[in-house]
């Protein structure tokens, strides 16, 4: 089987849609093929980022007008709102590999909107791709919003967790917050530092990852 054939299966693999034997075959290949393994890792990252995006409702509700014109009587999907009703439709991320790669690229470009940090190509041996580093206000806002969303979910789920666990989680979040604050402070003093920009982004990402992991496990319990 060619690399292309393998990579074409990665999307279904990541969505858990392969038959057990297909899944086993893909995993066996990933274990021995560094190229495909890297591609799968990249796709996972894109899916994770896409999953972190908010399900935003349109600011203007067009449905009543449309329903009136077409005479629709079917109930429209219920969106999550203040009542806490779960949405009927959840975002499901399923793309082909080229689409995912394009989406990942587009997400980086859009989210960055600005800063592409030169990683001094002379430092890197040929063949090794260093991912772009993106730090700006838009990204920071995105992170802050995602963190706030997940913190809200955690608050709602905290009754399912042991108080000691909640305390430990809060301490871990405090550790990350301190690190973020120190990185931001350092970045204000040295705004051109590539390292500090990346360090700040990665530390913020760690907070997101921790919150996501906790809320996922607590919700599933």
């Amino acid at each position: 089987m060619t690399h292309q054939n393998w990579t074409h299966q990665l999307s279904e693999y990541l969505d858990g849609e392969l038959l057990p034997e297909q899944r086993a075959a893909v995993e066996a290949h990933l274990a021995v093929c560094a190229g495909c393994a890297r591609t799968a890792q990249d796709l996972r990252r894109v899916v994770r980022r896409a999953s972190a995006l908010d399900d935003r409702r349109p600011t203007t509700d067009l449905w009543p007008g449309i329903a009136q014109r077409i005479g629709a009587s079917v109930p429209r999907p219920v969106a999550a709102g203040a009542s806490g009703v779960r949405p009927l439709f959840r975002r499901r991320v399923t793309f082909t590999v080229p689409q995912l790669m394009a989406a990942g690229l587009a997400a980086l470009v859009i989210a960055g909107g600005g800063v592409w940090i030169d990683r001094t190509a002379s430092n890197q041996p040929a063949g090794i791709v260093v991912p772009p580093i993106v730090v700006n206000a838009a990204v920071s806002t995105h992170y802050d919003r995602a963190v706030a969303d997940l913190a809200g979910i955690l608050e709602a789920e905290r009754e399912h967790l042991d108080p000691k666990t909640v305390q430990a989680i809060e301490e871990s979040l405090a550790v990350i917050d301190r690190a973020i604050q120190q990185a931001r402070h350092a970045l204000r003093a040295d705004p051109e530092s590539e390292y500090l920009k990346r360090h700040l982004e990665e530390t913020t990402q760690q907070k997101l990852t921790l919150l996501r992991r906790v809320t996922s496990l607590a919700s599933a319990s």
Partner: protein
Amino acid sequence: MSAFFAVAIAVLLPVQQTDTTFAVRQGMRLDVRNQEGEIRITAWQRDQIRVTAGRTGGGTFSVDQSGSILRVRPERGGWRESTSGTRRRFEWDDSDPVVDFDIMVPAYMALSLRGVETDIVVDGVIAEITAETVEGVVDVRGGAGILTLSSVEGLVRVDGARGRIEASSGDGDVFIRNAQGDINANSVDGDVSLSDIDSRNVTVSTVDGDLSYSGTIYDRGRYRLSTHDGNVTLSVPENVNATVTVTSYDGDFQTSFPIVLRESRQRRFSFTLGDGSAVVELESFDGDIYLRRR
């Protein structure tokens, strides 16, 4: 009549023990969830799974199969004895049971294990493993293919794994030893230690803790260790070929290798060992960085 039921239920209390064994085949996956207690998986040389569960409190557990997935779940509910004056009473208790699962599986059995206040221990399985808990230890000996191991509050330890290893802890240390394959290991408030590693691709990070790596540095491999508040120690063979970049915002760098700086910027410099084929990045915001001969 009520006295009969009281006696019958009393026989089942206080600790129920369930033991069931059934046949399985290659390609199946075992999926176990637990709220509180332990999930202990041990490999044996049979094409069978044996589930033994000791528990305090009421409730039962269920085993069901859907396609190639076998699900084991604790079930809520059980009769609990209470005493009111001189009278014994039995009340239905709907709280989460504390279940200690002890499960024997064929070594080829892929595992999905999730818990909340749960320790997860796996010994001898040579297959894909996902083991995630909120509060508790994740301790894996063996494992092959994709391994995803995490604890929000607790130690994560891996020994003898082969494949792609993702290990993380929120408030706890991560130890990986004698492992082969790509590794991504991180903690928030804890150390991350990798020893006897054979890998071409290693990413290790923590926010508040020390990092250490001892193992191979392959030509064209990639190795990145990054901490916010802690020391970084990399122990590598004498004849390593690597371009090493060291970044420390507020710390020192020490090495036993004779080095010539290739480039130096603010708080960041790089140098080459051998032909510089591998990429090694060592970062600490507030800590020292050590590069040692192994």
